[in-house]
């Protein structure tokens, strides 16, 4: 392993857990989140490994965001098709709620419910309820520790937009979490 490969290995090791957890919070189940993170790693390596090391974090999170968006678009299309094919009827020919037929969200998985304490569950639920851009700005700034400029690069928007999204996210979280955690 040469120096640049070792640097890439260190970088990916430093972000992989957060990237996975962020993808889970965004609503993916474990398998989908692992696939999304793996695809993002490969794309970073294939397309941007030659870029300066300090650019890897915003690039990686931009790829992660795009992969996550692609995943949801694909899932939405499949769910629409699935719902159409079943015509909202189960095997007994009874009308059922379409939402019951779709794959569960991350927070619905039994192992997720049992491994997280109530505070973490409340936090993740509140984060998941934020608009995606607000959630992303908040997690990248607070959890990943990216600067405003790097967050803007990762989100492909202006620094001003990042500040706005972040402020609104903090405001919404204070409002929602205060009741749970006070």
């Amino acid at each position, binding site marked *: 392993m040469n120096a640049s490969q070792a640097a890439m290995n260190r970088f*990916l090791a430093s972000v992989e857990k957060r990237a*996975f957890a962020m993808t889970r919070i965004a609503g993916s189940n474990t398998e989908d989140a*692992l696939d999304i993170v793996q695809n993002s*790693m*490969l794309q970073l*390596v294939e397309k941007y490994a030659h870029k300066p090391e300090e650019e890897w974090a915003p690039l990686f999170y931009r790829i992660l965001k795009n992969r996550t968006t692609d995943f949801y678009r694909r899932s939405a299309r499949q769910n629409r098709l699935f719902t159409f094919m079943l015509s909202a009827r189960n095997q007994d020919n009874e009308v059922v709620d379409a939402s019951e037929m779709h794959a569960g969200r991350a927070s619905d998985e039994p192992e997720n419910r049992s491994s997280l304490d109530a505070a973490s569950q409340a*936090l993740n639920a509140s984060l998941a309820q934020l608009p995606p851009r607000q959630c992303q700005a908040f997690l990248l700034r607070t959890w990943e520790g990216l600067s405003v400029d790097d967050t803007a690069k990762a989100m492909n928007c202006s620094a001003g937009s990042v500040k706005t999204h972040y402020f609104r996210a903090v405001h919404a979280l204070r409002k929602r*979490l205060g009741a749970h955690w006070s």
Partner: protein
Amino acid sequence: MKDEHPQDPASIDAIERNLRRQEEALPPEVNARLAAARRDAVARMAAQDEPRRVPWLGMSGLLPAGGLLAAGVAAAILWPVAQSPLQLPALDDNEMAAATEMEMLDEIELIAWLLEQDADVG
């Protein structure tokens, strides 16, 4: 924008601590799969860094020379075959006699049939 009240769980610090705790509490199997994905990505990077051309074909001129050589060998093999007439195995006396007999039998049957046709018409 940071909230300094440690008891206020909605503070940014408290949220950050909680998220880091979640990060550290990932199941071992998830950590193992993330590490495997990272190793795959780094291996891909190593493969990209390697020179792509095949070393023994890398010298300019060697590939055309190899092509010419292959064409020459093919021509040397196919040329005599193309020039010689098709050689069939010769028949021995018994085989020849049998073949002649078969032809005669065919002719006899033909003649008998023709005679039958004439008789019917007559």
